[in-house]
């Protein structure tokens, strides 16, 4: 309790403090978000007009791959791990994470993974160009040399995620304050507990997939090579066995964030807490048995198509429960619309919209038309960006005053929200039309009939990109010279242990555990 943070760079390199590590994760993920976002801008600039203007098609493929990989593994996942590090100990009344030194390790291997990945851009033969789903044989037989570096960085990211998850599970299971029963935990803690279990279950499967690729490429095995008795379709099964739970790994913590913020600004407790917990668990369970809905076109037996179609549709039920609960929480509440609340309301609307297009895609017969078209791109950006990124932004605005003891500029926050909200929809709404009209994804060029909507989409993308720079500016300006707040409870409607510690949150909190009534 007596000592504060160490001085200089050593503080960050050797820190075992959950708040420091949370901060590191958040800044790292924001840096990756800007990098991945820059690649997205390159993609949209090239697609601004038909024909090839700025880059070569080979480079375009590298951009789509790097954009996807960096956004999923470098931006969204570490952002939520950062929030978990900061908030879980505060929310359950624990002094720190269970395994502080492993915590340090699981963060500090990440920059190496992404430096390795980014360095492939400068290698002969270029960066990985096979899409973020890296299907074999594109990623094995026809891959550029740099694929080995890609595999290496995937292994490190996986190790980092697994260590982070084990840490989170140990913290939640063993370090809750006396009286904090499982069914009293805030929903953010619950969603992270379930997410961490998903991660421990599927990150090793991803590691297995890239290991098989590595062996096929370098050691003459034929897991995915039909020539040697393997099967490229096997790769898709293994990848999506990881990949479908992965999308819930990304979105469940976002559900947790929204379940914290909506009650705070509705000044009502969350409606249906227990059903939220069960719905989260149900979604996590279902996520393991629906993976082949990404593969309706590989030539599955009809029974398989039907099974994966109905099982996928089933996920809409627990998800519907969640949306219903959020809306009901707002119903007849004393609502105010500060920036975090705006992002959360947008989340509920746009995520539900993305859920509906997902339901369309789950219809096996229809999916054959939509498959690998811009409709799919639009669908998953509605759930990934308006889902995960919007809720992450909401979380930063909501907890930033608690973290640094200063209030952000509300006007700037709201301006950012509206630019982001409008820009996002201008970017991705037209992509539904493009996809339904038949524009395939992952091409550097398109037919003339797609020109107009592509230009609109690109303009929206530049808008959305600009909103992120405003976000960065607002956060830095807040930390440097925001208006100080001293209330423990920054938001009058906010509930939870994190609002009982002083503002800004001291370096060490809950050295003696609080009593939960």
């Amino acid at each position, binding site marked *: 309790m007596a000592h504060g943070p160490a001085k200089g760079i050593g503080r960050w390199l050797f820190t075992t403090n959950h708040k420091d590590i949370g901060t590191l994760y958040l800044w790292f993920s924001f840096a990756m978000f800007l990098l991945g976002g820059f690649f997205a801008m390159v993609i949209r600039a090239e697609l601004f007009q038909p024909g090839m203007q700025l880059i070569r098609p080979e480079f375009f493929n590298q951009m789509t791959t790097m954009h996807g990989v960096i956004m999923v593994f470098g931006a969204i996942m570490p952002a939520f791990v950062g929030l978990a590090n900061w908030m879980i100990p505060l929310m359950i009344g624990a002094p720190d994470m*269970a*395994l502080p030194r492993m915590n340090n390790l699981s963060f500090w291997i990440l920059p190496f993974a992404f430096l390795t990945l980014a360095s492939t851009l400068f290698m002969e033969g270029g960066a990985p160009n096979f899409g973020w789903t890296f299907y074999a044989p594109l990623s094995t037989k026809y891959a550029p040399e740099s694929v080995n570096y890609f595999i290496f960085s995937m292994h490190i990211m996986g190790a980092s995620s*697994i260590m982070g*998850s*084990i840490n989170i*599970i*140990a913290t939640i*299971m*063993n*370090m809750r304050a006396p009286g904090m029963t499982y069914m009293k935990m805030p929903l953010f803690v619950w969603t992270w507990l379930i997410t961490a279990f998903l991660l*421990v*279950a*599927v*990150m*090793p*499967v991803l*590691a*297995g*997939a890239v*290991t*098989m690729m590595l062996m096929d490429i370098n050691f003459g095995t034929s*897991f995915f090579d*039909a*020539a040697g*008795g*393997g*099967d490229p379709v*096997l790769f898709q*099964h*293994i990848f999506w*066995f990881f990949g479908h739970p992965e999308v819930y790994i990304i979105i469940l913590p976002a559900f947790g964030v929204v379940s914290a913020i909506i009650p705070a600004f509705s000044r009502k407790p969350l409606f249906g807490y227990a059903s939220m917990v069960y719905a989260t668990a149900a979604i996590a369970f279902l996520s393991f048995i629906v993976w082949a809905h990404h593969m309706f076109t590989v*030539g599955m*037996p009809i029974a398989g198509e039907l099974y994966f179609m109905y099982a996928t549709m089933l996920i809409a039920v627990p998800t519907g429960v969640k949306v219903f609960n959020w809306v009901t929480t707002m119903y007849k509440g004393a609502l105010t619309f500060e920036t975090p609340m705006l992002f959360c309301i947008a989340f509920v609307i746009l995520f539900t919209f993305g859920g509906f297009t997902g339901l369309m895609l789950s219809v096996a017969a229809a999916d054959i038309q939509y498959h690998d078209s811009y409709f799919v791109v639009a669908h998953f950006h509605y759930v990934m960006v308006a889902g995960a990124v919007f809720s992450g932004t909401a979380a930063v605005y909501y907890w930033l005053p608690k973290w640094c003891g200063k209030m952000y500029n509300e006007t700037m926050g709201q301006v950012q929200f509206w630019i982001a909200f409008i820009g996002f929809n201008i970017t991705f709404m037209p992509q539904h039309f493009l996809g339904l009209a038949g524009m395939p994804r992952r091409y550097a060029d398109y037919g003339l009939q797609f020109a107009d909507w592509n230009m609109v989409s690109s303009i929206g993308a530049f808008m959305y990109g600009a909103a992120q720079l405003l976000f960065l500016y607002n956060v830095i300006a807040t930390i440097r010279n925001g208006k100080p707040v001293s209330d423990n409870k920054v938001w009058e409607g906010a509930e939870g242990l994190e609002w009982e510690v002083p503002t800004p949150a001291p370096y060490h909190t809950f050295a003696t555990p609080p009593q939960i009534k």
Partner: protein
Amino acid sequence: MSTVKSHRKVVTKLSLWAVGMFGFALFVMPPLYDLFCEITGIGIRPAERYEAAPVAVDYSREVSVTFAATNNEQMPWAFRPMDSKVVVHPGERYEVKFYAKNLTENDMVGQAIPSLVPFSAGDYFHKTECFCFNNQPLAAGEEVEMALVFVVDPELPSSIKSLVMSYTLFDVTPVAADTVAQLQ
């Protein structure tokens, strides 16, 4: 302290689980997938010799069979069907030839792997004799005509009017080293 002990328990259990899932992906999923394909009949079937039973030839029906030959990229031989397409009556025996020549200066062994489209015709295309049943050794510069004798089953669903039989030729010299030795 007891929390340290319970941390160790959680970490041990979860690490074992993670290692187990890694093993599951690497050692269980591929064989499981093969088994699934075998049960449902998707993918490549093993080349099986068919013992021809006399059946009535259905002269009222014609089915076109197209032949294709591809080289695996590591296979430098010349390889092509000598008849690219035949029209057959179900129940009748036909013989077609494939040509292969070893263009290299080394003795080699090749192996052809068959694949039939559409998949649903797989049970109705019978090979009574096929060069794909055995590997094919060729000395440097040697050439050969290889036979395929087949019968299209009269039970072939009437919706199927054409078949494509394609072969991919692989270099199996390293694994068939004793066959190469016999060539000398």
